[in-house]
């Protein structure tokens, strides 16, 4: 299930792309979910753990992935218990956050109102301890917390 805390949270990783640079592991990149997210969001193809083919930048390393994809990969694979700031992700990452949360309890912070409009879903808003199931319920709750 996806748990969201809106606003600042003590101990959150506010800058996940920076954290990623110093913490990622090769096998996180070649994992099928990561490869799929990289293809969808960055329009790039994973060639190997240290090589990605980008249509704009050419051959890049995982260090040059977008901030959004780096954050998604951390959400999927980092098991340190860290809570990542999902405002490093654009709306085009929302469906992937929900997908990652299908298989694990995922807690994130948000400093903006990400567009979660892929109903049906169940999102637990930690600030109010409320579970929302529609985009409208989610927005009605979020606008009061940002």
């Amino acid at each position: 299930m996806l748990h969201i805390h809106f606003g600042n949270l003590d101990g959150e990783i506010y800058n996940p792309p920076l954290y990623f640079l110093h913490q990622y592991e090769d096998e996180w990149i070649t994992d099928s979910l990561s490869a799929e997210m990289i293809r969808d969001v960055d329009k790039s193809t994973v060639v190997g753990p240290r090589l990605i083919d980008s249509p704009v930048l050419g051959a890049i390393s995982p260090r040059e992935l977008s901030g959004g994809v780096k954050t998604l990969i951390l959400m999927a694979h980092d098991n340190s218990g860290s809570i990542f700031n999902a405002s490093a992700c654009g709306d085009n990452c929302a469906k992937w956050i929900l997908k990652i949360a299908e298989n694990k309890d995922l807690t994130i912070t948000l400093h903006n109102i990400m567009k979660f409009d892929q109903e049906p879903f169940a999102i637990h808003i930690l600030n109010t301890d409320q579970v929302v199931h529609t985009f409208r319920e989610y927005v009605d709750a979020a606008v009061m917390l940002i």
Partner: protein
Amino acid sequence: MKGKYRVIVQDKRIRYDFTIHRNITVIRGDSATGKTTLLDMLTAYATAGAESGTTVNCEKNCTVLTGMDWKNRLAGIHDSLVFMDELARFTASEDFAAAIRNTDNYYIIVSREPLANLPYSVDEIYGIRTSGKYGGLKQTYNEFYRIYGSRDSLVYQDPSLVIAEDSNSGYSFFRNIYDKKGISCVSANGKSNIHALLQKSAGTRILVIADGAAFGPEMERIHRLIESGHTIALYLPESFEWIILRSGLLKDSDINAILESPEDYIESSLYFSWERFFTALLVEKSQGSYLRYTKKTLNPVYLNDKERLAVSKVLSPLLDDDAAHSTR
């Protein structure tokens, strides 16, 4: 600093071409659109100039502000375009807002946060999009686009409720207009109270009238409410004072020239937002005339038939033809 500035940043693979119009610009949008790459290229150029393999063409110096010692660095930056990367946490702080107020730089902030302390315009919130290949087949051409498009594209002429951001002269004028139409008009007493009023009145057709010049921090919140099915329309002129200046009531050749290209007249070190400039301009130009304007209390002359009609013509997107062309 005043004026608008075209910026071209490029290397062999990517070219960015955009224009900065005001003291605060915000860039946001989807992941992987090239926001960080733009900042990386600007940083490379700032580090090694043309030897970096990137070029930056702009009439003004372009620099990137990062790191925990941002405040010290900022103190030494003048007459520049200052870019800040996504996830530079300090940009959302009151400290940052205080530090950039009264400075002679323009600031370009990459952030999805509302940045509630900064009075930025709804017009200056941009995304980046690729518009094709440039020059040869190898260079991708990126441009800015306004995320919120036209300011009054969805205006209701027959709302059930009107919420005005203003509580002073602007509110008095709009309440007078809508009282005559039998439509309730309430003041939100400030932009940050609007979303709560919108939720309280959910289910009705609501028109929000606010100062577009400083409404940027509220836009995502209200845009999301609209996307999720709330029946809300927005009318976002620069400010109420801008409407009066546009009405032609004040016969002054300076005013037209200023309204034609405000960026050429509004000094960023004096005015944190354009809204304040337009207020100061209207107060100055109306001084000593029967149209004397104060922000606090509406001069009743603006509710007389002739003056009201002149201002209403500027409001034509809001009003049906009869209301815009008649005061009866």
